[in-house]
């Protein structure tokens, strides 16, 4: 039985990190209906900034982690201001193409630094002995990752539901013209959405980097790995990102734990999330929590 519970715990850990990584997509889509293809590069940038502050500048890692979130907040905001602000009102496909270009630019910039090609790892700062209860283990790195993830997700959920700016962002997502008519600054909302996505990406990068080590190839791949999570949960739902992430994490762990190595199967943990995704989308085309908009003509 401890085998089953171990898979559950691992699934939740992995799933919550997927959820945090997916949050950036959701935040941008929620306000501007744009999919940011360069999200993986921002995740990687956040992790590298944390490392640079900690190791090269000698700042304690907890502080570096917070500082990198602030830096990435402004970095993403600048990206929106420089590249995307002019595209407000243009077809969505144009904006998505710009984010593809942005991905190439960020790739190129990161390749100019040692982070583009070398492996790095954060200095150890957490106990290495795992926490074990009833034969189920979780490492401190994973536990801290889960705590940060849920804290941030709770924070963002509150922000969108209760704060004035959050409600403005939801209004812009719903109808840009109507929002402008009641005095909401759409450009400011877009900028803030990108900035918050940058902040969550930096957090995700720090957590993933702590688990896998800092390898650009691994880190930026998470921008794509979490795609099924976003689609499953619904592109515009924070709650969906959390549920979708955890479902994906659990499916991966159970597939790997029970299917792989049996009946000649291998690598099902990689494939099963996509199979389940297709099945769910057959019944819920907008994802589990995505809004199904009805247009009346």
């Amino acid at each position, binding site marked *: 039985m401890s*085998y089953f519970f*171990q*898979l559950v715990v*691992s699934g939740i*850990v*992995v799933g919550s*990190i*997927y959820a945090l990584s997916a949050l950036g997509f959701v935040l941008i889509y929620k306000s501007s209906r744009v999919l940011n293809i360069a999200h993986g590069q921002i995740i990687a940038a956040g992790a590298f900034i944390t490392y640079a502050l900690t190791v090269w500048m000698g700042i304690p890692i907890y502080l570096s982690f917070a500082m990198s979130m602030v830096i990435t907040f402004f970095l993403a905001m600048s990206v929106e201001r420089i590249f995307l602000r002019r595209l407000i009102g243009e077809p969505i496909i144009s904006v998505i193409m710009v984010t593809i270009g942005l991905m190439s630019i960020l*790739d190129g910039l990161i*390749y100019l630094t040692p982070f*583009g*090609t*070398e*492996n*790095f*790892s954060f200095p*150890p700062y957490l106990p*290495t002995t*795992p926490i*074990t209860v009833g034969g189920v*283990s*979780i*490492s401190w*790195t*994973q536990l801290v990752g889960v705590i940060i993830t849920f804290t941030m997700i709770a924070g963002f959920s509150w922000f969108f539901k209760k704060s004035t700016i959050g409600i403005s962002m939801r209004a812009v997502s719903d109808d840009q013209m109507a929002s402008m008519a009641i005095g909401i600054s759409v450009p400011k909302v877009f900028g803030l959405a990108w900035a918050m996505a940058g902040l969550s990406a930096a957090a995700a990068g720090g957590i*993933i980097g702590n*688990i*896998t*080590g800092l*390898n650009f*190839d*691994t880190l930026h*791949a*998470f921008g794509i*790995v979490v795609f099924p999570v976003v689609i499953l949960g619904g592109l515009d739902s924070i709650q969906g990102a959390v549920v979708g992430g955890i479902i994906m994490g659990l499916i*991966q*762990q*159970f597939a*790997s*734990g029970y299917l*792989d*190595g049996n009946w000649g199967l*291998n*690598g099902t*943990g*990689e494939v099963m999330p996509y199979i389940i995704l297709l099945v769910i989308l057959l019944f819920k085309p907008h994802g589990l929590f995505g809004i199904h908009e009805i247009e009346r003509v």
Partner: protein
Amino acid sequence: MKKDNVTTWTFLLAALCLLTLPAQALAGEVYKIGLSLAITGPTSDAGNPYAKGVEDYFKYVNDTKMLGDDTIDCMIRDDQYKNDVTKRNFEDFLDQGIVFYLNYSTGSTLALKKDFEEERMPVLPASFHAGNLVDSHYIFLPIASYSAQMIGLTEYVVKHNKGGKPKVAMFIHPSAFGRGPVEDVQKAVAAGLDVEIVEVVEHGKDLDNTAMLKRLSEKGVQYVLCHTVQSPVATMLKDASSLGLVATSFGEEGKITFLGAHYTGGNDLVALAGDSAENFYWTTSYIVTSEPGEGTDMQLALAQRYNRDEKAANSHNYANGMMVAQVVTEIIKRAKSKGKEINKETLYEELLDMNGANAFSPKTTVGDVTFSESDHQGVDTLQLYVVKNGTFASEGSPFTPEYTSKIQ
């Protein structure tokens, strides 16, 4: 007046040409070599120090006039681990008249095999896949193949396992590179290598390997043989450590001993996995800088001469790149000493002649480099290393796997 000027200028130019002719003759030949590899993109953590090793050694050859007045012009291009880019680079190198080609990945080496045959171009890749040599006359592996490395590790497991038939799993990269040695290990088992392969696991971009490790543990797997790059191995080791599954001594009962081939190990693994890398067994044909000797002194001096950082200087992939450059330089030297013209044909002949008394010792490897018509694998011997207190230390003497010859 105008006519006088023209005549004067003509004389001056003629004199200038006459004066510079001996200088041009003295400048010597320039031998062009091409290297296409992943300096960015997947596996660039290995490709980057490899490129530095090649670049620095050829610079050293030119700076110290190792080839007299002749020089080597090595063109290094990034292919981002993409076969189509590698092919484009190779074709461009051909247009520029290269006499030797250095390749990198398994995928591109296999994909360009026919081109190498058509062009009759001798090639040293960074891929040690035994399949590179099938139906090929011009590809030469610098060191023991991945198959030899994995068979060597399996033989070590069989020899040192306490108790019955050892149960092993293979943890491989999901690519031609990773799958390369699986069939050969299975052939070795069929040929009598007494081990049970419980599972072959192709990893993905895993954040957590708990399910896989628990499953292997439940199936009684005692050894995991890894053939991939460092990052996924480090993540797995950290997870295994968190689950209390890492053996503290070789073959410890109820635990798992982790072993790996060339690209899984090195200093980066220790940096990424930290304490979890303790007791990781690793094999390669290169001498590592934590085991100082003539070759590693040479490696560190070269890196220092060209201002490389500590990380690159101590990388076994820097030694890897340096070694192929040493081999190319050596065959050019040998061809020159025999008065041959330096071209792809003569360099190919020299490679095939590199055996017996003509074997080459680059000092950066644990054995001599030997090639012949029937032997396209350079260094046949391997060294086993184990992580102790955060550094790789030699375990036993260099060895040659027995079963590699039995499966051919």
